[in-house]
């Protein structure tokens, strides 16, 4: 399911991914395991959250941005 709504706010799925990142998970695989969501949805969700400026990416690793921390 989409992780960012049209108004730019994270959806329930988006919030779950952000919470997993806040809990120290950094890879799509670890986030999928933590949130019990399919890996393909986590990958697409991270892409949306990246586009919304809520997460940052370094190689295969993801992290919350200041903006992402602010919505948690």
């Amino acid at each position: 399911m989409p992780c960012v709504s049209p108004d730019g706010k994270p959806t329930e799925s988006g919030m779950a991914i952000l919470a997993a990142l806040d809990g120290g998970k950094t890879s799509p695989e670890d986030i999928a395991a933590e949130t019990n969501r399919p890996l393909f949805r986590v990958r697409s969700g991270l892409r949306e959250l990246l586009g919304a400026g809520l997460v940052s990416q370094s190689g295969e690793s993801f992290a919350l941005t200041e903006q992402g921390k602010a919505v948690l």
Partner: protein
Amino acid sequence: MEEQMEQAVPMPRLGDKAPEFEAPTTHGTLRLSDFKGSWLIIFSHPADFTPVCTTEFMAFAEIFPDLQQRGVELLGLSVDSITAHIAWVRNIEEKMGVKIPFPVIADLSKEVSMKFGMLHPGQSKTETVRTVYLIDPNQVIRLILYYPLSTGRNMSEILRVVDALQAADKYGVATPANWKPGDMAIVPPPQTQESAEERLNQGYECVDWYLCRKKI
């Protein structure tokens, strides 16, 4: 000219890397590469709100847990809009009591259909035929099925071929006609005369040197 253009579209073949795409789906925008590391079935249907397709969607939903158990994701596609997909999926749940758990690509641009060779003008110029692409975790196409518009697919065969390909990969075997899990598998043919003679003493069940079976 139109005919020449249709013929110029490359059709993916077995053993090819599946073509990458990014497409709107009922579960958000997805890319093929999002599925890397999992088996994936991409299947197309002619149109939403049509009778055979509705029975197929319910049947795919029924085998969805079996596919998940085998590590296989499922992704539908037709040349319809997201709105039509959402309305149809909701209708199936409301009228038939079946929840559709997998995403469906809205391929109004026909971009994905063209890449995968799902449009067969001899059947329809606007609707995708009933295709099934089984793609492995390395995103290589391992199986292609084409069914005509008039014929719904056989879910048992789809599960059977997933089992057969996964067994082939796991055990380095082939599977005979009508194989199903629990049956003996075929040992690949020997490549040298020496191995042909040796295999008769390796405990396989051999009819002759080129047709040996073993339990897996």
